[in-house]
């Protein structure tokens, strides 16, 4: 019987029904301390340190502070120190602050070659879906499950439903994978993928680079999905070749990975078709990623919404965002710009953003920063001189970490500040209490930084 990629991976990892073996467990400092503590209290060992890797990302300051001991915030410091101690006690390799390979957990997995097709990957972080871009089954778990994986290298799981989204045609000039996923969430809503593992397919997906594919899978969780996946192909293998963690018998592994894509005729619980040629550059206007429209549109009018719940939510959102219905999106003026996060902080994101600058300067009304996703991305960008281009234009160039994606470190918005952000969540207070977030692609963020308001990147020379 023809099988979906998801089914092939699921079946290959079933220890028994509903008990799934985990090939790679990624650990970070925020969601792991209670799990390590649980192991200690019950006298359990961490079963497979060789399938586990830890990094510090959420708490780390990005202003160049070299070591955990230098984190000024005592609680943040304690979390990072706890991670280092736990990793040492349980034999887990750790890339903490100061390590050449420290970075956002979802950036370092792929760049170290740890993320591979056909694997099951989990992490106590919802954006674990990112790794599905390689044709892996990757999803976020809570701390109790983190402890369960540590102790047993397995997870108790009910088989999720499957969805395939087929994108027909090519993306237009200036339209990015960030716009593709934002438009998809806008269409399906923030719970449209709930309960599903989603496979993204079609010409527009095949044409994406690995890093662009990661952006798509990353935001699966914003659509409520359990995991996002994209079939591995030459683009995938090319990206992986030569990375430190990949199999020694790489060509043989490629042969195995080529068997992973969904078979012709396999069925999904749900199939959705989207015309990729009609996707435009997108900007969120509200406080969920589903509240998103084309940059050429105007802020929607709650009065015109169908359901009372949508109307109420939109009214609340507009009030929080300080926006009025009918305002053209291009007239909205962010004071802050953030290029970074596990959605858009990889080298190609930074290249695109830097490439859009073309000698121009950040508007006087804007404070803009660029935060590479990992220490390796940072080093690579500096090798290519991107840091100079950004600095020259008036962007701040920072160290690697989650930074202003969630404001658990010193990088935050102040009350009422409006930010064009390449991250993934525009929830109330996400980037700092009272902060107003508009999610966009890296080039749209760059253009907003320079012009001081949103612009349609397609008409921006």
């Amino acid at each position, binding site marked *: 019987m023809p099988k979906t990629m998801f089914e092939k991976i699921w079946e*290959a*990892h079933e*220890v*028994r029904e509903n*008990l799934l*073996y985990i090939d790679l467990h990624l650990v970070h400092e*925020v*969601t792991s*301390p*209670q799990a390590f*503590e649980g192991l200690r209290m019950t006298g359990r060992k961490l079963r497979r340190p*060789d*399938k*586990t*890797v830890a990094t510090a990302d*959420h*708490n780390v300051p990005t202003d160049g502070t070299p070591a955990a001991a230098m984190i000024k915030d005592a*609680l*943040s410091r304690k*979390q990072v120190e*706890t991670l280092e101690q736990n990793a040492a006690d349980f034999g*887990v*390799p750790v890339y903490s602050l100061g390590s050449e390979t420290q970075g956002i957990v979802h950036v370092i997995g792929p760049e170290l070659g*740890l993320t*591979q097709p056909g*694997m099951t990957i989990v992490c*106590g*972080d*919802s954006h674990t879906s990112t790794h599905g871009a390689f044709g892996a089954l990757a999803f*976020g*778990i*809570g*701390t*109790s499950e983190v402890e*369960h994986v540590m*102790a*047993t*290298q*397995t997870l*108790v799981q*009910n088989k999720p439903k499957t969805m395939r989204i087929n994108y027909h045609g090519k993306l237009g000039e200036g339209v990015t994978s960030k716009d593709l996923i934002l438009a998809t969430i806008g269409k399906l809503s923030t*719970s449209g993928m*709930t*309960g599903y593992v989603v496979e993204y397919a079609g010409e527009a997906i095949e044409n994406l680079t690995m890093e662009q594919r990661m952006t798509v899978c990353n935001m699966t969780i914003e659509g*409520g999905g*359990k995991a996002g996946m994209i079939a591995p192909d030459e683009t995938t293998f090319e990206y992986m070749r030569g990375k*430190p*963690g990949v199999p020694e018998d790489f060509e043989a592994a490629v042969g195995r990975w080529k068997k992973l894509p969904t078979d012709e005729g396999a069925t999904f619980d749900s199939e959705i078709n989207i015309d990729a040629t009609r996707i435009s550059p997108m900007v969120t206007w509200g406080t*969920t990623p589903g509240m998103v429209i084309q940059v050429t549109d105007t802020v929607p009018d709650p009065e015109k919404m169908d359901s009372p*719940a949508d109307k109420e*939510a939109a009214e*609340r959102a507009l009030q929080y965002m300080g926006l009025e219905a009918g305002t053209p999106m291009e007239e909205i003026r962010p004071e802050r710009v953030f290029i970074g996060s596990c959605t858009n902080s990889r080298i190609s994101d930074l290249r695109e953003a830097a490439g859009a600058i073309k000698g121009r300067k950040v508007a006087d009304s804007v404070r803009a920063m660029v935060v590479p996703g990992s220490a390796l991305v940072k080093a690579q960008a500096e090798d290519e001189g991107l840091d100079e281009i950004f600095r020259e234009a008036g962007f701040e160039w920072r160290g690697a970490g989650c930074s202003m994606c*969630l*404001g*658990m470190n010193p990088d935050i918005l102040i009350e009422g500040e409006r930010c064009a952000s390449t991250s993934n*969540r525009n*929830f*109330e*207070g996400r980037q700092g*209490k009272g902060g107003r977030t508009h999610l966009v692609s890296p080039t749209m963020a760059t253009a907003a930084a320079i012009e001081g308001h949103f612009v349609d990147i397609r008409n921006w020379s």
Partner: protein
Amino acid sequence: MESISTIEGEVAVLDRSDVDTDQIIPKQFLKRVERTGYGEFLFYDWVRDGEIELEPHPILVSGRNFGSGSSREHAVWALHQFGFQAVIAPSFSDIFYSNSTKNGFLPVVLDDEDCQKIVEAGQAKIDLESQTVSWDGGEASFEIDSEIKRRLLGGLDDIALTLQSEDEIEAFEAGPGGTYGPVTTSL
């Protein structure tokens, strides 16, 4: 984990949809390395701004897509430690739902209409064994996975249960399934 059989009492109401975990427990409170001490910070920003007022009743009723966003289990700990024992909503995010059931905290899915009736009744009784919610003037049944239900009713420790199958895990690791993926310790 504490076992659950029935949960009964007044309901607290949070009449919003898409309540995300960033709201339930804002990130500044995620810096603790313990499992406790989160209850007092529940919905911190909304409470501090006077937008909502919540009583620690046994049951919370809220809108669709409850617990969306970040995977932080701290959200469940905060709700539980504040005093809630169950949340009733038309839908939940997957991770939040799963996290709840690992903590003896009961997520109950009922449609909008039933949620409204419970809000109006002001009190309810959830019976896990019979999978029903009853209130003054009405009753509804809810779905729950039988394995999750068994674990909740018995207050069973997931890890201990899985470790009973350690032989099977070892056998799996010895087979072809044990060979996927990198060896992190050799990098």
